[in-house]
């Protein structure tokens, strides 16, 4: 098809986890013949194994579809997939910037969720046309009318264009495609203007270098063109220009309004930053496109290998992972207890878990992870402001003027019967209530000012368990506030174990210290000597437990029939010992470094 800008539609899909986004995307691909159902592995757009396993989208994907509409004309539809989890909301904003419209998928049985709401507001900020799609209407528990009303009342969207669909059974797919053509405007921009293309994502290919995913806003880009990255000023010759079908397909040129990729033998991901504008080096545009702010890591943790000799492998794995994950931040650090490792920054807890899992699974590493923490701001008595990503690096109390911690605006959506439970939980987590509104008849939207550090300590799991899984959570950064925080150290056999230090609110310090030493006592195995475990603030010990020395460990009987069995027992014990980290004379199991998590579980 010849390029005709009026017949291009660029759109993305906004949905809460499990509301059926991936299934719908698959149906659109199938319906438009981008892939036959036979070619299609279930849910093509979720590429990573991990994504398929967890049923979530982490890494954004894009695909071009061709659709002959009712007017008899063929349209080019570019679908840019978006991740659904709160950790990845910045990736959502990247895809929104490359689109003119969005499908808002809402589960007909569940209704709007906190995160859907956040993403819809983002889309509205980007002036996107939104088509509500009420999915899973064939479920027995579906209540499309109630959901429509919610969309109208809460978001204020016109629901006359809402589509009733079931991606799973293929209901409403054609109607969705028609609405995309009818409602979403074609891209603007002038074909004759100097090239301006937005990089909305990238991935690293070992043969071709960085593959930049772009949306051409103005002008066009072709193979052989010398392009310039406006932010970095670096120039490259384009060797490949193509589209996603969804596999990468060379077509030689991308025009204004189109979505596709370029490859230009870019060896370093840093030279091709997501959010940067690509322009023609020979006739550059004068102003770059409005970029979007780089995602800043919200959560940090230390990553170490159980065996220090594997450090090199960990470094290599981190380098490889960061090629495809611009939001992953890491730098080397050393821990007295754990040796060489990295302090890594993540967008959120899920992001952290995913990276850990990939390191262990794809790179076969045996990792020790320290408990996650937020970034603290410490004002010192000498007037300096320090950003602290590692609790053990907090200066001694005498040198600290005050400490600030990051806050978030948390929105929680839950059936109204659980309001009490949610409020109780938020209160336990040092949160300040700011607002409550009703959504429809049965649900409420609660807004809280909450320290981010409280969210990373199992808040989400607690929220889910106290609301039988019905509550949803979204949060956005809301600046730093001064808090009465102290550093809690853990001493094992008299030595501070730096990797176990945490920052806690002073009112909770005693309680947490107590819980932590008790937990550690149950995790640390008995040794040939006594192992005292202490929690201290500064020099003051606030809690103490002792792992008693083992005095008897012997099998009284061992005859012919016992030998294999006893051997297996000994082997099992030895295997368990191997997985421990030797710190001084004490062997500490890996779980101990995460002991601070899950303390509130009862």
């Amino acid at each position: 098809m010849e390029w005709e800008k009026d017949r291009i539609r660029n759109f993305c899909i906004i949905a809460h986890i499990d509301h059926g986004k991936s299934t719908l995307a698959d149906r659109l691909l199938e319906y438009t013949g981008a892939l036959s159902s036979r070619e299609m592995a279930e849910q093509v757009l979720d590429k990573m194994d991990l994504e398929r396993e967890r049923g979530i989208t982490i890494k954004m994907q894009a695909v071009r579809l061709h659709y002959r509409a009712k007017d008899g004309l063929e349209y080019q539809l570019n679908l840019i997939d978006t991740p659904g989890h709160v950790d990845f909301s910045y990736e959502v904003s990247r895809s929104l910037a490359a689109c003119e419209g969005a499908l808002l998928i809402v589960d007909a049985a569940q209704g709007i969720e906190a995160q859907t709401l956040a993403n819809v507001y983002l889309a509205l900020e980007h002036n996107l046309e939104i088509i509500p799609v009420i999915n899973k209407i064939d479920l027995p528990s579906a209540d499309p009318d109630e959901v429509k009303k919610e969309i109208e009342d809460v978001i204020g969207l016109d629901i006359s264009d809402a589509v009733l669909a079931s991606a799973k059974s293929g209901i409403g797919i054609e109607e969705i495609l028609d609405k995309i053509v009818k409602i979403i405007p074609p891209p603007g921009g002038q074909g004759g203007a100097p090239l301006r293309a937005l990089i909305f994502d990238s991935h690293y290919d070992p043969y071709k270098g960085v593959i930049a995913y772009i949306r051409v806003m103005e002008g066009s880009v072709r193979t052989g063109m010398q392009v310039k990255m406006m932010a970095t000023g670096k120039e490259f010759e384009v060797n490949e220009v193509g589209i996603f079908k969804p596999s990468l397909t060379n077509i030689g040129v991308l025009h204004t309004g189109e979505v596709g990729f370029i490859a230009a033998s870019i060896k370093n991901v840093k030279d091709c930053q997501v959010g940067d504008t690509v322009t023609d080096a020979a006739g550059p545009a004068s102003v770059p496109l409005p970029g979007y702010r780089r995602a800043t890591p919200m959560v940090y943790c230390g990553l170490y290998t159980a065996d220090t000799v594997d450090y090199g492998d960990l470094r290599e794995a981190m380098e490889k992972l960061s090629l495809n994950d611009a939001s992953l931040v890491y730098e080397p650090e050393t821990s007295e207890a754990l040796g060489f490792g990295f302090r890594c920054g993540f967008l959120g807890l899920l992001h952290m878990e995913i990276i850990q899992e990939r390191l262990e699974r794809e790179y076969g590493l045996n990792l020790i992870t320290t408990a996650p923490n937020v970034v603290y701001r410490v004002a010192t008595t000498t007037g300096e402001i320090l950003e602290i990503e590692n609790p053990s690096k907090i200066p001694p109390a005498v040198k600290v003027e005050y400490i600030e911690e990051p806050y978030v605006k948390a929105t929680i959506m839950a059936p109204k019967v659980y309001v009490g439970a949610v409020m109780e939980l938020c209160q336990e987590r040092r949160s300040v209530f700011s607002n409550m509104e009703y959504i429809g008849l049965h649900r409420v939207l609660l807004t809280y000012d909450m320290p981010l550090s409280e969210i990373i300590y199992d808040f989400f799991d607690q929220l889910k368990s106290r609301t039988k899984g019905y509550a949803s959570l979204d949060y956005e950064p809301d600046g730093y506030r001064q808090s009465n925080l102290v550093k809690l150290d853990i001493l094992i056999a008299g030595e501070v174990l730096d990797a176990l230090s945490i920052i806690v609110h002073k009112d909770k310090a005693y309680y947490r210290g107590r819980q932590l030493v008790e937990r550690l006592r149950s995790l640390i195995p008995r040794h040939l000597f006594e192992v005292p475990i202490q929690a201290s603030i500064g020099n003051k010990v606030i809690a103490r437990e002792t792992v008693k020395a083992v005095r008897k460990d012997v099998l009284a009987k061992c005859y012919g029939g016992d030998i294999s069995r006893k051997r297996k027992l000994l082997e099992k014990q030895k295997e368990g010992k191997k997985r421990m980290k030797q710190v001084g004379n004490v062997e500490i199991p890996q779980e101990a470094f995460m002991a601070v998590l899950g303390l509130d579980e009862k």
Partner: protein
Amino acid sequence: MSIGIYIHVPFCIKKCPYCDFISYPLSGPTVKSYLESLVREINLYGSALADEDKIITSIFFGGGTPTTLPAASFKTVLNEVRSSFFLTEGCEVTVEANPGTVDGPGLAELRQAGVNRLSIGVQSFNDRLLGMLGRIHSAEQAARSVQLARKAGFDNLNLDFIFGIPGQTNHDWRETLHKAVEMAPEHIAAYGLQLEKGTPLAQAVERGEICTCPEETEIIMYRDAVAFLNGHGYSHYEISNFARPGIQCAHNLVYWLNQPYLGFGPAAHSFIRGVRFSNDISLAGYSDKLSREEYPVENKIRLSEADEMSETMFLGLRLSGGVDLNRFYRRFGRWAEDIYSYEIAGLCNKGLLEMSGGYLRLTTKGLPLANVVFREFV
């Protein structure tokens, strides 16, 4: 190569709540079929094995309760062994006997059949603790069986005891030890009670109905036993075993020296020519296979040399004398000190092992922590 034979007798009058050995309730027809199968099994091996693998230095009837069998059956079985294997001069033939299942004539019949050693499951000389262990006999009956055994002509007796029984005090244990020494057996075994998973006793402990003996108490009991028995002329030659000089249990030494043995009867284990295997644990399965002239063998594992070396270490270290390093070298052509240099050095530094006179052994400190040491060798 000399070999020990173990014969498992899987019958008990009543199963003890701490025991996890295989045993079945006693009934005439099953006993008959068991004995037939056993004879068939012994015969099967006798005709299959090479002559050099048939030189027998010890035979041990264990259970279960072997003395639940009719006394005459020992003669039948031993005759089959004699005709299928070569018994060495002075071959030790032990039968485990439980008080309450023996009488004078029966014991005399055993002795006549060629049994020359009796291992009596006394367990305790305290009726309250015998009750806790679910034993069918009283302390009085136990003492009586020892006398009966002597009368029947047994001059090599072992008495089994258990310490660390729920509710047992240090005083109780010392009393039992005193009475044991008064009986003047040639050999004494003192086992710390092990809670075996799934046994009624372990379950009762898990449910919180019974409190286990505190670890501290058990350690004191063990030390008391070692000191007391040493003082009465019993040398402590294995973690749980004591003997008058020169009257150690030849059969059990086969295991601790990692020598070959053949196990007959359901669930019995064998280790011969580097291969370990065990018999079908169900009596029915065992008998079925033998009725078809098949080996009733379930799990067969060929041990690697590394496995065999590691077992030679952790079994040998059970002996107070320790592992004979020259003997190890003669067996494997390599020095244990080289293969396990790192482990041995570490354990010696921790004071758990010592090396002297060509032997590597547990120290007094290492004895109650034997597993900590053994782990390093697997």
